[in-house]
């Protein structure tokens, strides 16, 4: 097997006239956690379905775990672990029955591979007799991950595994992924959460079926081209429109209760922004320079792409 667990070149996919994927090229190293970050409809699910042999690309090719996703789909399906975005276990079967079923169809021995799922399965084991449909969101996802792992896959494909899951469970879920990575399992994961992006070894920002950038989170944030200020006031919406009036500020985006404002380096200081806003009648409670996060980079790249 090559150094890459996954490699794609020129992958394109159309649904009728809509282009879902536009000439994707990327590679994922073995044992890497590779994240796909992008809004809904960016093409993440389509890409994952192509990689898991569920869909055929219109052009380009892809290899996963050393197998061509079209020609060698049978061999590939034996070594893939896949968790679709939608909860896809049998709701009318119990936790135990679900696990036994998935072990059965992969001809895997639960005892033999239990060490892989032990950390998460132990948490849901008290509910082993409960129907999967009656589990909480977090437990459902842990069970789904257990079922996807029970045959010790070489490559694990997770499509938004933590959407709709509480913060604590998300954290536990990611701890688990990091442990799995140590077992040598290559993981690709789609997520809309930026805080999860920084836990990946590398991320690809994807929008409208195109990859905007692929790199480690630190490199991506390190190459953010602007100086960034975090501003806060009582009226966030008003604050954004005020900030946009300043000729040197080219972006003002809402981040929860803060607004991130970008300027060219060396043009403005925090004090100048505060003064500008006070003159316009907006009282700020905080103006401070910050380092860019993944989301800032993503918004910036999206904006450039759209222009």
């Amino acid at each position, binding site marked *: 097997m090559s150094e890459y667990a996954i490699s794609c070149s020129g992958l394109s996919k159309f649904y009728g006239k809509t282009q879902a994927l536009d000439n994707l090229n990327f590679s994922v190293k073995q044992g890497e956690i590779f994240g796909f970050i992008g809004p809904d409809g960016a093409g993440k699910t389509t890409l994952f379905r192509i990689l898991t042999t569920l*869909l*055929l690309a219109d052009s380009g090719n892809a290899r996963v775990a050393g197998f061509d996703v079209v020609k060698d789909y049978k061999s590939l*399906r*034996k070594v893939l672990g*896949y968790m*679709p975005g939608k*909860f896809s276990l049998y709701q*009318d079967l119990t936790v135990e029955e679900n696990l*036994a079923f998935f072990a059965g169809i992969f*001809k895997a021995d639960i005892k033999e591979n239990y060490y892989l799922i032990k950390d998460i399965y132990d948490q849901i084991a008290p509910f082993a007799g409960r129907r999967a449909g009656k589990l909480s969101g977090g437990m459902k996802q842990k069970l789904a991950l257990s079922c996807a792992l029970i045959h010790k896959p070489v490559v694990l494909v997770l499509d938004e595994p933590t959407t709709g899951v509480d913060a604590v469970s998300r954290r536990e879920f990611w701890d688990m992924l990091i442990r799995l990575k140590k077992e040598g399992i290559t993981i690709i994961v789609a997520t809309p959460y930026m805080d999860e992006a920084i836990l990946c070894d590398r991320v690809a920002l994807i929008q409208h079926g195109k990859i905007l950038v692929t790199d480690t989170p630190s490199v991506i944030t390190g190459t953010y081209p602007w100086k960034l200020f975090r501003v806060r006031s009582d009226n966030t919406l008003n604050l954004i429109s005020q900030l946009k009036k300043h000729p040197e500020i080219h972006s003002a985006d809402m981040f929860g209760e803060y607004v991130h404002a970008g300027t060219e380096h060396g043009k403005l200081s925090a004090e100048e922004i505060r003064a500008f806003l006070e003159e316009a009648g907006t009282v700020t409670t905080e103006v401070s320079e910050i380092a860019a996060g993944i989301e800032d980079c993503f918004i910036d790249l999206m904006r450039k792409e759209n222009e």
Partner: protein
Amino acid sequence: MKRFVIKEFLHIFRDVRSMVILFGMPLVQVLLFGYAITNEVKDVHVSVVDPSHDQVTTAIQQKLFASGYFLQGEVLYSQSEIEESFRKGRNKMVVVFDDNFAQKLERGEIPSIQLIADASDPNTANLLVNYANGIIAGYNQSLSVSTNGPVIVPEIRMMYNPALKGVFMFVPGIITILLMLVSAMMTSISIAREKELGTMEVLLVSPLKPLHIIAGKVMPYVLLSFINAISILILSHYVFGVPVNGSLALLLAESMLFIVLALSLGIFISTVSNNQQTAMMLSMFALMLPTILLSGFIFPVENMPVVLQWLSTIMPPRWFILIIKSIMLKGTGLAYFWKETLILIAMTLVFILASVKKFKIRLS
């Protein structure tokens, strides 16, 4: 594979609706058809036009009205009154005797008896005429035996169902319909459900082959449908006294064949439908209605327009009904319906092949 079958059983046993369809419906259907929806004839008003009024015509009338099927309606004196009495709905059938009936008989002539039925309800009319015909034929027979006179009326016998009991005719039809419904509809829905809930996506990304998935889906239903068939048979035998004149083993074997056929049809339907709704509609309209209407269950195939007769030849139930009627009522063996059996086997193979071929190894 074993796991798959266990899983399917769990799905079925945990779903109340499935259980009701599987086990409640056959019971209700058999009882309904057996007791309520029969087209048996009982206490129907029949009038007589009898210009001869001699001992022969009186004897025939007595036989008719003693049968328990007919009640004496109003007395009519001429042909012209018949239509009016039909219009008023007083009669379902009128028996018109020739004049000088007994004399003609003695002279060796053949006097006529007309049976005029109100055919606005064709099925009943048909039955009434058949009943009356049977009774008159019976009288004729006794007449010719005692007098050695000429046999005047062609012999009509109600073969296989001498008492003309509706339930005898219905049971083979019900078994067919229920097996079709349970087998085809339940499997098609259960596969479509996997697609709808997204679990099919996970099954596809596994080493399971299409044949495995299909076989795993089918096996529980083979067993359950078979139990179903047996319970319908037991019910119809002990509650309605429907005979099994032929070999029981053969009957069960043919039922098994039909179950597998219906299941493969169900799978074929599921390969072309993406959700439970579509699967259900397809099973209902593509299977149930033709099964009921075109199989000869309710309307005899011989009475259909030629186009529909052709169409009915591709309906699996048509052949199966023939087979089980032969076994249950006529008591004949495989020699009499090996052709029908072969047709069913061929159909099964076609559907299984088509399903395995059509079964998508990817998402659309």
